[in-house]
């Protein structure tokens, strides 16, 4: 038990569970199933982008990907336009979304490496370019996803939303490469001390490059799923995931300063963030109050996490 309590990610689950209970009690238990399913569904998108952001943040101070929202939008838009509501084009649509992700990831790291721009500026400026590309490509036309995809994205299997299952599979893969793979070791080593990692034979450029590409691909995938789930791509559909992707990493117990990451915490944090918002909703709080609370919670967690010794 003590070993479990010592894990940095259990607290996000406790918090999520607590908020879940409070909300259920308020509604008299009427919404238990609905709330749980909604939480899993919406958390799934945060989880997928959060995993990518987690690897990037683990690379160490200054590493963050701010192009996630734009990547989600462009990937969703481009995929839907290519598929053009045809069920036969589903695989082509997924391929387009992934290609968008890979391209943006390569472009981001090219900016960082070739032009020596700090990642925060590089990804922010590339996000403007990507967002503009989405606007130009989409021209304001909202295309519906193919029926088979919108059904898949909104349905559940044995009561578990399909998008949550997708997120679970991706999380399992992320956990394996982080905890068991050499790539995870390298990311963690770079995040602790880049110079020492380089002098110990870690291929620093290759690892960082792969990480930025991985993050963009996961964002593209999340954008694809989200546009199928919500019945079409909107230009602002990624906007809220900028802060969310960073918040779930931090609340989930990954070290903000880099070098230490963990996957389960992303789940707890994503569920927690969604449940806080729905709890405030059931209490009838306004949008302003909801955002205020979200901000206060993130600050609180960062302060609390910085006082704990690193794991």
């Amino acid at each position: 038990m003590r070993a479990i309590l010592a894990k940095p990610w259990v607290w996000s689950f406790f918090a999520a569970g607590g908020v879940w209970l409070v909300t259920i009690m308020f509604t008299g238990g009427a919404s238990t199933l609905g709330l749980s399913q909604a939480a899993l569904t919406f958390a799934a998108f945060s989880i997928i982008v959060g995993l990518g952001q987690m690897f990037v943040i683990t690379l160490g101070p200054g590493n963050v990907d701010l192009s996630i929202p734009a990547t989600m939008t462009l990937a969703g838009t481009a995929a839907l336009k290519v598929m053009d509501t045809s069920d036969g084009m589903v695989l082509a649509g997924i391929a387009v979304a992934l290609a968008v992700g890979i391209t943006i990831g390569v472009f981001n790291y090219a900016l960082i490496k070739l032009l020596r721009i700090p990642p925060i500026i590089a990804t922010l400026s590339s996000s403007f370019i990507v967002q503009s590309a989405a606007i130009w490509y989409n021209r304001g036309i909202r295309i519906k996803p193919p029926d088979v995809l919108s059904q898949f994205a909104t349905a559940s299997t044995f009561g578990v939303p399909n998008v949550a299952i997708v997120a679970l599979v991706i999380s399992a893969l992320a956990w394996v490469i982080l905890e068991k793979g050499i790539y995870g070791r390298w990311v963690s080593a770079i995040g602790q001390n880049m110079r020492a990692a380089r002098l110990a034979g870690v291929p620093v450029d290759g690892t960082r490059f792969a990480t930025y590409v991985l993050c963009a691909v996961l964002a593209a995938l999340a954008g694809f799923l989200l546009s199928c789930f919500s019945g079409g791509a909107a230009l602002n559909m990624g906007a809220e995931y900028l802060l969310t992707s960073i918040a779930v990493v931090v609340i989930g117990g990954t070290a903000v300063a880099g070098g230490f990451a963990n996957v389960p915490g992303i789940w707890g944090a994503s569920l927690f963030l969604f449940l806080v918002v729905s709890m405030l909703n059931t209490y009838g709080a306004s949008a302003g109050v909801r955002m205020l609370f979200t901000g206060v919670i993130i600050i609180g967690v960062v302060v609390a996490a910085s006082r704990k010794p690193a794991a």
Partner: protein
Amino acid sequence: MEATAPLADVLAVNGAEKSFGAVRALAGVDFFVRPGECVGLVGHNGAGKSTLVNIITGGARPDAGKVLVDGRDETASYGIATARANGLRCVFQELSLCPNLTVTENARITHRSISGFGWRVRAEALIRQKLDEVFPGHGIDSRAMIATLSIAERQMVEIATAFSESDRKVRLVVLDEPTSSLDASLARQLLAYVRKFVASGGSVVIISHILGEILSTADRVVVMKDGRVVADRSAADFTVDSLVAAMGSVVRARDAALAAHDYTGVRPVLKRSSQGAIDFVAYPGEIVGLAGLGGHGQTDMLVSLYLAEGGDWISRKDGKVAFVAGDRHVDGNLPLWSILKNLTLTVLPDLTRMGLVHTGEEANVAKKWRDRIEVRTQNLDNPILSLSGGNQQKVLFARALATRAPVVLMDDPMRGVDIGTKQEVYAILRSEAAKGRTFVWYSTEMEEVCQCDRVYVFREGTIVAELRGADTTEENILSASFSERAA
């Protein structure tokens, strides 16, 4: 000493001792400076000069011994403030100006008495007048930001600031390597000013590795070695050669007479042309030493040798070189990790199948090296920082030795390592070299350099000498390390 000195010493240190952990930096030092005297302080790296200067300037307290100012015992209350109040100034080797402030503003920091309305004008006049006096024709704009000045100009500003007077008279100035970044003509100007300052009754302690300028400027030369004063004589009694001899220890008898190997026809494993006349080469099974004073380009050379082998993008499973960091906090440790993960990082590609690390094999490799190099820990899963410094260093050794790399680069890796461990590591190096591994070993310790088959001596970023076999003596290395440029 002499009857003609009725004035009390400006500053004296009696029987000063100072230890940092297990390292004894000062082992009972007597040192004094008379009014109107320039004292030269020389010694090898680690001889204790910097520690002595720190005690004089109040930056460190001696563990034992006394500090006397004008003959008064000030030991109890001596600190940086007391030192300054008694007119003592210091120009440190590491430049201590604020780069984001102007020359004038930096001068104001040391002169707290310049305050109130119009301080800027007064501070500017003060520093400009002193710069003109010490370095005529210097061409430094006192309103320029320090960051925009060259390293030599910064050094000049620092020196002028130290000699400038506002409310208190400057009585003793300690110059730690003042000419290291000045060219010959600026160095001449400074040394001429030092003589003038001394002639007017001031005192100066000058530390320099350029022995010629010590001999021409100082009245008296104090030689330190291993935390003790080993010679204290009038400068006129020394020559450059006798000074070098006084700094070095007795040449130790070597374990075995190392014959100079003949490598003609053998392909070198590592090669690098340098800007200087001497190129760097290393042959299989050789232990090549990099010597010279600290910070003269040895580490840069090792790092660039390492980086030249590539591996930025794709990990080299059959990497040619491995690196042992000396500055373990900057170049070596991964502080969040366990001993095990720190130890296996470099060898990890060998323990990986399909991208996944084989943890069983990893644990075996770590155990094998823990036993071989005797890392003192019960549990390899403990954090790396739970180990003592010497044991952390052993882990970094194991990290490099566990690989199959035929060349191991070592960046003064024995700092903070106790003598017993050193002997163990020397033995491992010898046996690995006998198996054909090449070691390139930068060390600031003579004893280690003398273990090498061949030694390159560095000065100011380039190789200035190559010594082999019986020529690898402390005396030869020292004389090659010190420039004999006349001041």
